[in-house]
């Protein structure tokens, strides 16, 4: 009986901790959104973050997208060949890339690169009193540190996903034409034939949400880190893990909103 009570107590405490953490994240997000719409604004910092998050993430996103497109073409060809549906390869590649793989893979790559960097930078600023120093210099840390990163990630990730979509489809095209010997014109025609605006648009909406989530979790974990180097390390890990999980959760939710019949 006591063991059962202890177990229930443990589950309850765990649930309470999760809900409490979720509440803190939501409050942090609401506070950050409030600061997004009130001055002062820091355009120079916003531009710097857009370059850091967008431009410097291009290589990793591009490589991921192009190889994912190539693998997808190869895998779908070998699968579809079993029931003589090889002609659907181009359509499957373009729909998979624009709806799912482009935004999700770009999101996960950026979560690893940028989510960790944001948490580490803001976490280090927290444990070395730099955030307190901002306050004593009459500068709101939410406006100075959090808002530029949130806005930059939300704006830039859709742009990265456009690049990922193009390169992913190109990767499929390369394998389809040069390895599987599809006719280039026919492959491109099959790619565009079934592609709709909402396929691309849903991917871009996902990307904007993922960008917001990545920056939010990086800022939140960094902002609340404590305990020196160990605390910053934990914040970095938590930022990447929580952002990655939330990307997958929101991916389902947005897919449900766009495509559920």
């Amino acid at each position, binding site marked *: 009986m006591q063991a059962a009570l202890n177990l229930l107590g443990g589950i309850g405490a765990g649930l309470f901790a999760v809900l409490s953490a979720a509440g803190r994240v939501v409050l942090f997000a609401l506070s950050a959104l409030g600061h997004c719409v009130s001055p*002062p604004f820091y355009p120079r910092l916003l531009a710097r973050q857009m370059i850091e998050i967008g431009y410097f993430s291009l290589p990793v996103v591009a490589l991921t997208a192009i190889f994912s497109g190539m693998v997808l073409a190869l895998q779908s060809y070998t699968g579809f060949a079993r029931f003589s549906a090889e002609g659907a390869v181009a359509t499957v590649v373009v729909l998979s890339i624009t709806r799912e793989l482009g935004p999700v893979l770009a999101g996960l790559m950026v979560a690893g690169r940028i989510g960790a960097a944001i948490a580490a*930078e803001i976490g*280090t*600023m927290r444990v*070395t*009193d*730099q955030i*307190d*120093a901002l*306050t*004593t*210099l*009459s*500068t*709101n840390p939410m406006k100075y540190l959090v808002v530029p990163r949130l806005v930059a990630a939300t704006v830039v990730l859709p742009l990265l996903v456009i690049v990922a979509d193009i390169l992913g489809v190109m990767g499929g095209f390369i394998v389809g034409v040069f390895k599987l010997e599809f006719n280039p014109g026919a492959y491109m025609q099959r790619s565009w034939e079934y592609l709709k605006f909402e396929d691309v648009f849903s991917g871009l909406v996902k990307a904007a949400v993922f960008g917001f989530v990545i920056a939010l979790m990086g800022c939140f974990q960094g902002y609340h880190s404590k305990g020196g180097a160990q605390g910053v390390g934990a914040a970095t890990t938590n930022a990447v893990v929580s952002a990655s999980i939330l990307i997958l959760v929101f991916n389902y939710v947005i897919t449900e909103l766009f495509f559920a019949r």
Partner: protein
Amino acid sequence: MTERPPKLRIRGLCKAFGQKVVLEGIDLDVAAGSSIVVIGGSGSGKSVLIKCILGLIEADSGVIEIDGRNVLAMPRREREAVNEHIGMLFQGAALFDSLPVWENVCFGLIAKRRLARRDARARAVEILAQVGLGPEVADLSPAELSGGMQKRVGLARAIAARPDLVFFDEPTTGLDPIMGAIIDALIVEQVERLGATAFSITHDMASAQRIADTVAMIHKGRIVWQGPASAIRNSGNPYVDQFVRGSTEGPIKMEVRR
């Protein structure tokens, strides 16, 4: 004739973190233009006290008046306006890693006083000269500086906006004795030049004696003694005596975990 209020007046300041009471009714007056040093052992509440005054930690109860106005009851924007007249040198200098030295020094002037960036570098070089640093330091990043130089840059940042109240958190911690003495001399010189009021916390007795007009001792969240710096070695207070002697015998029991 009305008596001039103290620059800083604290009454009944309390702060607890959960069950742990850190400040337990602090009362303190700091006269305008004076230099007070709060001494006390690790965990005595010094850092929490300074953070409460600066608004970095929310106090549970009490009154903190700066120039006769209770800053704890102020709206955020009004509090930020008060902070514009306050300077702070952090224990580890807390320089912004991502900015060069000149931008660190003039950060407050650029952000709040609308100093143009093209003028800020020249202004930073002037202020750096006041703390004994040459113009070649201006374009370095904080990571390229020694501990002593970082403290000087931190001091330059603290005085850049010509504050009338300056806080120093353990200004000599982590420095060798000679550099500590140099930093103390700079603090005294710059505070006198500005005509500012100085509020420092430290556990370095040599430093306290160099920069203080008045010394207050904090122990377990209470001020247990306050008096002129010249009286510190003959205070007659058992807490102060033990602290000054650095003795393990006395009313202060340090927790030692083995």
